């Protein structure tokens, strides 16, 4: 695949090169239109890609984008995909994702993706077109209250009413989106703001009196935590997505190894600690490992780092970690003691706090008693020996777990893996052993089906030479299947790993367990021929029905570098995800296979 920066890429992209330098780059002190200011701001912000879709209210902006090359616009096929792609881009490389959509339906289509990013604290700036200021409130054509609709699912949003405020607002948007606990920010730009003119000035730095994210953990709290850690006999480290967002993976590894503590990661936190490592006991929560959940339930000191005690993690809150004293490190004060009352709260950047704790121990603070840890590790090894993720390896049918395991093997754990929502997502999390942060990209908080494929596009743009796989189900993939067209246009070599069980599998599993097998609307009929479908977009489709062909097909797919390979694995329809903590049960009340 040509890298997205190269010329060939642009021919594919249908963008024309060799435009004359726009007037405003040649002369100083000229007045620019809002649209030109918009583009200039993105350049000054270092934005590489804008994922978007045009329409009336943003035509001036598209016109300005057309006349330059620095900021590349990626045309998706549905605005939801633009937000997921920008989100995947952001998750995989840490830079904010940028989206541009038109007013009305363009903006409402983007809402699912905005909410998805919000729930997982992903830095993103979404520009929505708006009707001209004079028409706002008149039920004008394609008018909708973008600020009102997005308010509950953004970190913040802005309506720009005057072109004079545009540059500063854009600066604020990037600042708010990327600092503190990150999140999506919406900037609503009325059409006349794009066409009015003013002088351009992009502020280098910005200060907002009403927004001062805390960065440093309080030294006294850090001391208290270190003292509590020293008393631990059955310790447990529980870390989440905050470690990845906070670039604190190295410190987490150092901290955990220094203390020889067992560690579990949340669904969002996978990859922050190398999964193949001995101290790693697997993911925790509803479909977490037996050893992770049992260790949580029985620990005496719990160190929660950048995790938010989500109900899919805690199970029944009344029964959560009954014997533990809890330390909670998080950048968001509102995350602390929200669901579970903690003993030592520390508000601050996780990386800084981890480093401060490591320093305390290195400077001579008492360490936990290594001898006392031995029986705890023995106990954990006994739980681990239960082998809770075992599955039937003799089956005639393709077991979904086997597909993920094989993918892990042949990519040597180095691929970027996105997923949708359902059983396949859990198998991906359980069987692909992530050993680096930002490789595992999934919608943990909102649980958005349709996320995986467009997110993979964003990942591929951020990492043009890496292998990007989307592990999905036949239900989820159909929610953004139109993006096959986008992938063709930009030559994205994404591998779609469709674990096709002809069921909305996760729904079917709940119906089997909790609704006496009444499978209401969970069977997927009238599925397309995915092979032909992929081919009709100019991609490659491969159907795999036998376990023996799984590895070969995956290897074949890895060779393709210029288009999508859609691997349709026909899997065992009745396979369930184990272990499982039923909703409302305690962490030690797992259903095992």
């Amino acid at each position, binding site marked *: 695949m040509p890298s997205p920066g190269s010329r060939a890429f642009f021919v594919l992209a249908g963008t024309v090169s060799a435009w004359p330098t726009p007037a405003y780059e040649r002369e100083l002190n000229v007045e620019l239109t809002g649209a030109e200011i918009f583009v200039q701001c993105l350049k000054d912000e270092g934005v590489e890609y804008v994922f978007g879709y045009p329409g009336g209210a943003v035509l001036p902006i598209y016109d300005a984008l057309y006349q330059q090359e620095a900021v590349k616009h990626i045309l998706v096929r549905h605005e939801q995909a633009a937000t997921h792609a920008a989100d995947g881009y952001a998750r995989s490389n840490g830079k904010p994702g940028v989206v541009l959509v038109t007013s009305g339906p363009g903006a409402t289509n983007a809402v699912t993706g905005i909410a998805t990013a919000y729930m997982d604290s992903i830095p993103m700036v979404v520009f929505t077109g708006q009707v001209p200021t004079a028409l706002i409130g008149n039920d004008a054509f394609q008018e909708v209250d973008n*600020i*009102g609709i997005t*308010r*509950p699912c953004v*970190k*913040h949003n802005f*309506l720009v009413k005057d072109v004079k405020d545009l540059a500063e607002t854009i600066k604020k948007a990037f600042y*708010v989106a990327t600092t503190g606990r990150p999140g999506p920010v919406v900037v609503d730009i009325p059409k006349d703001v794009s066409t009015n003119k003013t002088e351009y000035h992009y502020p280098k730095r910005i200060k*907002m*009196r*009403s*927004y001062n994210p805390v960065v440093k953990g309080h030294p006294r709290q850090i001391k208290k935590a270190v003292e509590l850690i020293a008393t631990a006999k059955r310790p447990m480290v529980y870390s989440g997505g905050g470690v990845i967002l906070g670039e604190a993976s190295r410190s987490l590894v150092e901290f955990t190894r220094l203390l020889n503590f067992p560690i579990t990661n949340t669904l969002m936190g996978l990859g922050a600690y190398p999964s193949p490592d001995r101290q790693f006991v697997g993911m925790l929560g509803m479909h977490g490992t037996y050893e992770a959940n049992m260790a949580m339930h029985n620990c005496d000191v719990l160190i929660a780092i950048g995790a938010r005690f989500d109900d899919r993690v805690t199970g029944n809150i009344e029964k959560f970690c009954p014997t533990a004293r809890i330390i909670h490190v998080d950048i*968001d*004060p*509102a995350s602390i*003691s*929200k669901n579970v*009352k903690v003993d030592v709260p520390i508000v601050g950047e996780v990386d800084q706090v981890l480093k401060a704790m490591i320093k305390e121990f290195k400077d001579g603070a008492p360490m936990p008693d290594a001898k006392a840890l031995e029986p705890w590790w023995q106990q954990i090894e006994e739980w681990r020996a239960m082998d809770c993720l075992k599955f039937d390896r003799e089956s005639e049918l393709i077991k979904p777990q086997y597909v993920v395991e094989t993918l892990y093997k042949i990519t040597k754990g180095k691929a970027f893996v996105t997923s949708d929502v359902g059983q396949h997502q859990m198998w991906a999390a359980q069987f692909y052993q992530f050993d680096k942060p930002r490789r595992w990209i999934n919608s943990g908080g909102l649980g958005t089906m349709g996320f995986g494929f467009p997110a993979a596009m964003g990942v591929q743009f951020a990492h043009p030479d890496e292998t990007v796989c989307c592990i999905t189900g036949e239900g989820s993939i159909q929610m953004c299947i139109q993006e096959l067209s986008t992938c063709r246009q930009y030559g994205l070599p994404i591998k779609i790993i469709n674990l096709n069980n002809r069921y909305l599998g996760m729904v079917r599993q709940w119906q089997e367990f909790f609704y006496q097998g009444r499978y209401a609307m969970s069977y997927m009929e009238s599925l397309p021929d995915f092979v032909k479908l992929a081919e009709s977009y100019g991609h490659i489709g491969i159907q795999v029905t036998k376990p023996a062909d799984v590895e070969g097909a995956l290897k074949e797919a890895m060779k393709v570098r210029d288009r999508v390979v859609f691997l349709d694995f026909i899997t065992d329809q009745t396979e369930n995800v184990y272990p499982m903590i039923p909703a409302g049960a305690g962490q030690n009340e797992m259903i095992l296979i």
Partner: protein
Amino acid sequence: MRHIISILLENEAGALSRVAGLFSARGYNIESLTVAPTEDPSLSRMTLVTSGTDQVIEQITKQLNKLVDVVKLLDMMEAPHIERELMLVKVRAENSGRDEVKRLVDIFRGRIIDVSNTTYVIELTGAGDKLDAFLQAIDRGLILEVVRTGVSGIARGEKALHV
């Protein structure tokens, strides 16, 4: 427990709806809410009366602080404070009833600010419970209309909420 929370927020369009939206989205209750610009035109001051367990109140203040438009806030219950609310009550006032109403208004240190042949408008300020007490004391059947502004609060002594 009942709490009075005073908030300084950016005087921006939509700031009020962010606060109101937060309360409805997270299921917190609002007993009353008042808002007006301050001496600094870029700031509004809001006073919110809410109730909940300590844990809920802690979440409310944290979530409010998280709103980008919120500059500063103070839970008035943390220190001695003064609470005031203004109430206007229109009552039926006829014949001998007129004197009785007047006496009651005097006891509560209210004022009668409008008089017609058949009605009075009474102005009363005080803490919320004083206004409640007045409404308890007066014959319910006489009340035609009640308007309350909602509570405002300010800390006693040196403590002040400003940027």
